């Protein structure tokens, strides 16, 4: 690749592989291009290899195989301090014996900037830390320490900023606020952010592109919308939001082009799934439908959605959470489905446990996954 490819400052990993001395393979073989200026999230459960990937980019771990480039520069085996990359560490790793201002000017001073006072002032203003400049890290709250870690990295204007679970240590409210803040700062400075997290909501709110990682490989990569509405694997379907996965038998294809659909028999009801949302070639498959796409009505009353229709479901439990209600339904074939309903008041009152209901969803919302995959993959153990 060269500059002509428009890959000016893109971060490119090719065949990246990490095997630890004890034999554990953390990253299988990673091919990934992260465009310059994008906010990219690596999302996955703990131990999926996302942090190892980040540390290989930072130079804190040495890749066993493969290459890492930023633009034209091969940084695969460069020393950490020779890379145009900075990291925001999970526990911030602020230098406890230095003041906030000294922490922030550490990078510029090492790079040989003679008098970084103005830069320090600017970055402290950007991160709202001007008042704290003379304090020591221990005197700051968690949210402030987090911002110092960010300022300390950002002041160097790296080609790529790596964020390793940067909000993990904050409480929920602060985390939400910092998510917005981080996004704002990224848009303001226009640097490439690579954000590692296990929190799917965090990844979806902030990133332009999300790569879902599992067991050392990337399961799927795309915009949050794409990943959520059209997951390719059961892992993605379960890890990003929640999904109902129902066993089905593929009958055949109909139509062509954008209208091509795959007909699937689901316990006696034939459902159609758009071919672009079908991710299996086998005879069997998991039909996936998101719980909020499942519509229910008391038995016999009309459902105002044209689509796949089932009757004879029974409400097993309902939990009212204000903005919406979560129902669990037992389908005639014994499986339990989740159904999230906005409390619009349309029906007036909640459905009682034990009530028999009709169920429906639009075929365009369903997706078909390979039946050889584990339907429980990606479910968080609690």
């Amino acid at each position, binding site marked *: 690749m060269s500059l002509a490819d428009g890959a000016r400052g893109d971060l490119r990993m090719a065949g990246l592989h990490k095997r630890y001395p004890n034999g554990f393979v953390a990253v299988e073989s990673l091919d990934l291009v992260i465009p310059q200026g994008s906010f990219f999230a690596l999302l996955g459960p703990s131990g999926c290899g996302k942090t190892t990937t980040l540390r290989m980019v930072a130079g804190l771990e040495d890749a066993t195989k493969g290459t890492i480039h930023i633009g034209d520069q091969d940084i695969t085996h460069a020393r950490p301090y020779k890379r145009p990359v900075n990291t925001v560490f999970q*526990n911030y790793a602020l*230098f406890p014996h230095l003041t906030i201002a000294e922490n922030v000017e550490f990078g510029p001073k090492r*790079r040989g900037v003679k008098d970084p006072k103005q830069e320090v002032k600017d970055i402290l203003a950007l991160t709202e830390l001007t008042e704290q400049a003379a304090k020591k890290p221990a005197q700051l709250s968690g949210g402030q320490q987090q911002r110092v870690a960010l300022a300390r990295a950002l002041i160097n204007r790296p080609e790529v900023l790596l964020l390793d679970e940067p909000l993990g240590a904050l409480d929920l409210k602060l985390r939400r606020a910092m998510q917005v803040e981080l996004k704002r700062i990224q848009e303001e400075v226009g640097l490439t952010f690579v954000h590692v997290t296990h929190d799917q909501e965090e990844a979806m709110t902030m990133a332009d592109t999300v790569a879902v990682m599992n067991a050392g490989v990337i399961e799927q990569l795309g915009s949050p919308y794409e990943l959520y509405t059209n997951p390719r694997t059961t892992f993605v379907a379960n890890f990003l939001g929640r999904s109902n996965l129902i066993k089905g038998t593929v009958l055949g294809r109909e139509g062509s082009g954008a209208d091509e659909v795959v007909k699937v028999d689901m316990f006696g009801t034939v459902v159609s799934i758009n071919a672009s949302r079908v991710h299996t070639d086998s005879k069997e498959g998991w039909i996936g439908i998101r719980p909020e796409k499942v519509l229910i009505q008391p038995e016999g009353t009309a459902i105002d959605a044209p689509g796949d229709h089932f009757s004879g479901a029974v409400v097993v439990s309902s939990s009212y959470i204000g903005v919406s209600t979560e129902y669990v339904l037992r389908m005639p074939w014994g499986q339990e489905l989740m159904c999230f309903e906005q409390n619009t008041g349309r029906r007036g009152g909640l459905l009682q446990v034990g009530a028999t209901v009709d169920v429906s969803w639009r075929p365009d919302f369903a997706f078909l996954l390979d039946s050889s995959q584990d339907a429980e993959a990606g479910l968080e153990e609690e």
Partner: protein
Amino acid sequence: MISRIGRWIGKHLMLTLGILVLLYMYIPNFIVALMSFNDASQSRNLYQFQSFTWDNWLNPCDPQGMCESLRVSISIGLLATLVATIIGTLAAFALVRHRFEGRSTANLVIFLPMATPEIVMGSSLLALFVAAGMGGQLGFWTVLIAHIMFCISFVVVTVRSRLAGLDSNLEKAAMDLYANEWQTFWKITFPLVFPGILAAALLAFSLSFDDFIITNLTSGTTVTFPMFVWGSAQRGVPMQVNVIGTLMFLMALAIVVGGEVASRRRARGKAAKL
């Protein structure tokens, strides 16, 4: 009146206990300070306060050989501290930061001298020196060798615990922020470990200065300060020993207070700079 005091003690039980413990710890120091002003020239009983005098403070080197022994002790203490601190600090870094074969064995072997009774170590050292043909040269250098040896263990243990408590992410963060290995060590690692090294050095000096048993066995005709005090105790300790004791106590006090003041001033100075 007595009931009032009783009530106060009842209310402030923790404080009372604390004061009692502190008194217990510091009374010996007060006695030493007091005795340094004792005029014992007229008396046969050296352990009783007779009358006040400045003589001891004005002529501290009067007792024959005392100041010479003090000089020997301080020289050995400083040299042993210097060498043991350097070797021990390097060893601690190796033990904490590097994975190598025999690391856990090394950890144990370094710890062992601390657990060995001094009398055993002293007599083995004497046997070693004699076997090595140094029996005729017992003195300053053999004592120094012995002191360096037992100080190293304490230095390693002290520095090691400080180093183990140091988040290794700090060094990674420094490297991530463009500091090379050398800069990372001097800007981050060393300043953070320094309090541990300083504590180890102070500990080493006081261990060396204080030591009697091992020193006695390896010193030949050389006399250190503890040996001088021990020797003179047979006839009655000269009052000037109390002067030296008081001076040592005041010096330790000055170091602690000075360190505290300096760190407070540093904190305040930084706040004022803004």
